[in-house]
C-alpha cells in the first residue's frame, strides 16, 4: 500500500516535469547547441567548403604522372612550363597550381599557388601525398619492398611525466583523461545543482499551494519527500540520457554530413571526445607516413575506461543529488516563498560551488592533499572524485575511493533522515521565516 503510494508520487513528480515544455525544449536544445558548436568547430577547422582541383606542373614529367587524388582533391599532372601553367590557372576552373621543380628530389620542396587559400588540412594532405610518392619511388630505386620499409620504421612514443618527488605519483602530462573527467565533474555539478533546486521549488510549491495538508493526510511526509526526490532525480537521469543520446546522434550525423566518409564516425564514443577526435585527425594527418593503424592518441582514448567513468558518474551524481536534494527539501519546507531561500541555499551549496571552482585546480594537481581531502568529504566528493577517477588512481590509493563512496552513502542516508524530520514540521509552518536555530529545534519536535 505505502510502496504503491510512493510510486504514485514518483509518477506524478516525474510526468508533470517531463511533460513540461521547458523540459522538452531543454532536452532538445541542449544537444543541438552542443552538437552545433562541435560541428561548427570541426567544419571551420578541418573542412574545405569547395572541392580542390589542382593543376600540377611537373618539371620532371612524367615522374609524377601517377599522382592520385580523391574526389574532393584531384590532380591534373601536365608537362608545361610554370608560366604556361599560371596562364592556364587563370582561365580555367583549377583552384590551385602545384609546382614541382626540377631539383625536387634534392630540395624536397615545391610550391602551391592558389586562387583562394586552401585549409591547412588540404595543404598537409598535398604535402603527404607528394612525400609518399617520392618515398615509394625511392624504395623502388633502392629495391626495397614496401613491407620491409614498414618493418624498418620504428614508431616511438614518448610519454612525459612531471617529477613530483620520490614515491609520489609522477604526473603524466597527457591531459586527455583529465579533460574528460573535468567535463564529467562539471556535468555532475550542474545536474546536482539544477535538480536539487527543482526539489526545493517543488516543496515550496506544495506548501504555498496548501495542497500539502491534503497530501500528508493521505501519505506520510517522508513518503512525499522521498517520492519527490526520486521523481525529480529520474527526470535528471532522463535528461542526461537524452542529451548523451541526441548529442551522439547529432554529432555523428553532423560529421557524416560534413566530412563524408573520410572520417570514421564510429570512433566517436561520447560527445566529449569530439575535440579529441579532431586532435586525432590532425595527429593522423601529421603522421601519415607512419603507415601505422595504431595511433598513440587513439590508445590514449582507449585507455579511458568509459564504462567505469559512466558508472562512477552515475554513482556520484545519484549520491550527491540525494544528499543535496534532501537538504534542499528541508530548506523548501522551512520557507514560504522562493525569496526566503537565499540565506539557506548559500551555506548548503557553498561546498558544491567550492568543488566546482577548485575542480580546475584538481584537474592540474589530482594528487595534492587538497584534492584527496575534497574527494573524500561527501559534500565535495561527487565533483572532485569524478575528476580524480578519470585521471586515474593508483591501486595503493583505492581506499580513498572506497572511503569516499562509503561516506557519501552514509551522509545521504543521514541527510535524508535529518531532512525528513525538518520537513515534516516545516511544511506545516507558515508565517515568519524561521532561523537556523529554530529549524534545528524542529528535529526534536
Amino acid at each position, binding site marked *: *500500500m*505505502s510502496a504503491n*503510494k510512493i510510486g*504514485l*508520487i514518483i509518477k*506524478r513528480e516525474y510526468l*508533470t516535469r517531463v511533460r513540461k515544455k521547458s523540459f522538452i525544449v531543454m532536452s532538445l536544445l541542449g544537444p543541438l547547441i552542443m552538437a552545433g558548436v562541435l560541428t561548427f568547430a570541426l567544419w571551420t577547422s578541418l573542412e574545405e567548403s569547395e572541392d580542390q582541383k589542382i593543376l600540377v606542373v611537373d618539371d620532371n614529367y612524367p615522374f609524377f604522372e601517377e599522382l592520385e587524388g580523391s574526389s574532393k582533391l584531384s590532380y591534373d599532372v601536365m608537362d608545361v612550363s610554370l608560366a604556361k601553367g599560371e596562364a592556364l590557372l587563370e582561365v580555367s576552373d583549377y583552384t590551385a597550381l602545384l609546382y614541382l621543380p626540377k631539383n625536387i628530389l634534392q630540395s624536397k620542396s615545391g610550391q602551391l599557388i592558389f586562387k583562394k587559400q586552401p585549409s591547412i588540412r588540404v595543404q598537409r594532405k598535398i604535402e603527404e601525398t607528394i612525400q609518399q610518392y617520392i618515398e615509394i619511388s625511392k624504395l623502388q630505386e633502392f629495391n626495397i619492398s614496401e613491407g620491409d620499409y614498414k618493418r624498418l620504421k620504428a614508431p616511438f612514443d614518448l610519454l612525459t611525466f612531471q617529477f613530483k618527488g620520490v614515491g609520489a605519483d609522477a604526473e603524466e602530462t597527457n591531459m586527455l583523461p583529465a579533460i574528460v573527467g573535468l567535463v564529467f565533474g562539471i556535468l555532475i555539478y550542474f545536474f546536482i545543482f539544477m535538480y536539487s533546486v527543482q526539489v526545493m521549488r517543488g516543496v515550496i*510549491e*506544495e506548501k504555498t*499551494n*496548501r*495542497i*500539502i*495538508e*491534503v*497530501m*500528508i*493526510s*493521505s*501519505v*506520510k511526509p517522508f513518503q512525499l519527500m522521498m517520492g519527490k526526490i526520486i521523481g525529480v532525480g529520474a527526470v535528471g537521469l532522463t535528461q542526461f540520457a537524452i542529451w548523451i543520446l541526441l548529442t551522439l546522434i547529432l554529432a555523428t550525423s553532423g560529421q557524416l554530413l560534413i566530412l563524408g566518409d573520410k572520417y570514421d564516425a564510429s570512433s566517436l564514443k561520447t560527445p566529449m571526445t569530439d575535440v579529441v577526435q579532431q586532435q586525432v585527425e590532425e595527429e593522423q594527418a601529421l603522421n601519415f607516413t607512419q603507415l601505422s593503424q595504431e595511433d598513440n592518441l587513439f590508445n590514449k582514448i582507449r585507455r579511458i575506461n568509459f564504462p567505469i567513468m559512466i558508472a562512477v558518474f552515475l554513482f556520484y551524481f545519484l549520491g550527491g543529488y540525494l544528499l543535496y536534494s534532501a537538504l534542499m527539501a528541508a530548506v523548501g519546507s522551512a520557507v514560504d516563498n522562493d525569496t526566503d531561500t537565499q540565506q539557506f541555499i548559500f551555506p548548503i551549496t557553498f561546498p558544491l560551488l567550492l568543488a566546482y571552482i577548485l575542480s580546475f585546480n584538481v584537474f592540474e594537481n589530482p594528487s595534492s592533499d587538497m584534492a584527496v581531502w575534497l574527494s573524500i568529504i561527501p559534500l565535495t566528493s561527487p565533483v572532485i572524485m569524478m575528476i580524480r577517477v578519470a585521471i586515474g588512481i593508483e591501486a595503493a590509493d583505492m581506499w580513498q575511493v572506497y572511503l569516499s563512496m562509503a561516506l557519501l552513502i552514509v551522509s545521504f542516508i543521514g541527510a535524508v533522515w535529518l531532512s525528513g524530520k525538518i520537513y*515534516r514540521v516545516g511544511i*506545516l509552518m507558515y508565517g515568519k521565516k524561521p532561523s537556523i536555530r529554530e529549524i534545528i*529545534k524542529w528535529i526534536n*519536535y
Partner: protein
Amino acid sequence: MSYLLEGNNINKHFGNFQVLKNVSIGIPEGQIFGLLGPNGAGKTTLIRTLTQITAPDSGEILFKGQALKTSNTSDFGYLPEERGLYRKMKVGEQALYLCQIKGLDKKQAYAQLKPWFERLEMESWWEKKVEELSKGMQQKLQFAITVAHRPKILILDEPFSGFDPINTEAIKREILMLKEEGTTIVFSTHNMASVEELCENITLINRGKNILSGSVSDIRKSFSKSLFEVEFHGSKVAFANALGYQFEIAEITEKPEFTQAVVMAHDGASSKALLTSLIQHVEIISFRENLPTMNDIFIDLVGRPQTSISEEA
C-alpha cells in the same frame, strides 16, 4: 455512546508552547459533529492529530475502538480550511491522483468521481487546468475530491467559506445527503448558526483545552438563564400582578397588536407555574422558553476572563 473516532488525553507541544492540553474528544458515528473554538485554540492541531498529519506527544486516538493506524488514512476525508490543489495539473488528472493516493485504483477513482462531477455540474472542467478555475470552482472541486473515495469520516474545516449562497446551499445539501448515507462528519466552523442548524453534538476547545462537550440541545438548556418570552393581549398591570414573587419582568414592550414580555424565573421556577398563573389574567398568544444561541454561549465561554492565563506564560 459508541464513538467512531475518539481521542483521549491528547497532548501536543511545539517547543515550549503547549498547543493541546489533555484534550479528549468523542465523535459519535453517523452524526454531524461540531468542533468549535476561537482562532488559535488548537482546533487545527487537534484535527491534524486525528487525521495523522502530526503525531500527538501523548494520548491515544481510537478509530472504531482500535488504535488509529496508517491504513486508516483511506477512511478519512479531510478538507482543510486553507484549500489547495496543484495549480498546473489538469482537473481530471488531479482528481484521479488524489483519489488514488487515498487507495482507490484508477478505475474505481474514475467511477466514484464521475457522479460527483455530474451532481456538482463540473463535468466540463475535466480537461481544464486548475489555475483556470475561479476560487469558488476550485473549492467545489476540492470538496468533490475530498468525498469521492467514500470516507467513513469526513472532516470539514470551514466548508462554506468562499462559497456564494447558492453553492453554500448545494454543499449543505451534499453534506446532509452524506450523513443520510451514514458518513460521520466533523464540522469545524465559526459560523454558529450553521452549528445549530446541522450539528447534534459539539466540542468547544479554547486555549488547548476541551471546555465544553455535549449535545447542542442539552448545552443550550444548561446555559438557559430561565428566560421566557410571552406575547399577550391584556393589561400590563394584570400581567405584572400575576407573576408573583417567583417571576420578574426583565423586559416589556407594547406592540400595536399585542404586548411582548421577557420574564425571568427565580430559583428554577418552572414554565408550568408561570403559564398557570398568567393564563387566568391575560390572553396568551405565544409562549416559549428563551434559550441562549450557540453564539451567545460561545461568546460567554470564550470571552470570559481566563483564570489559566498565568499557567501559559
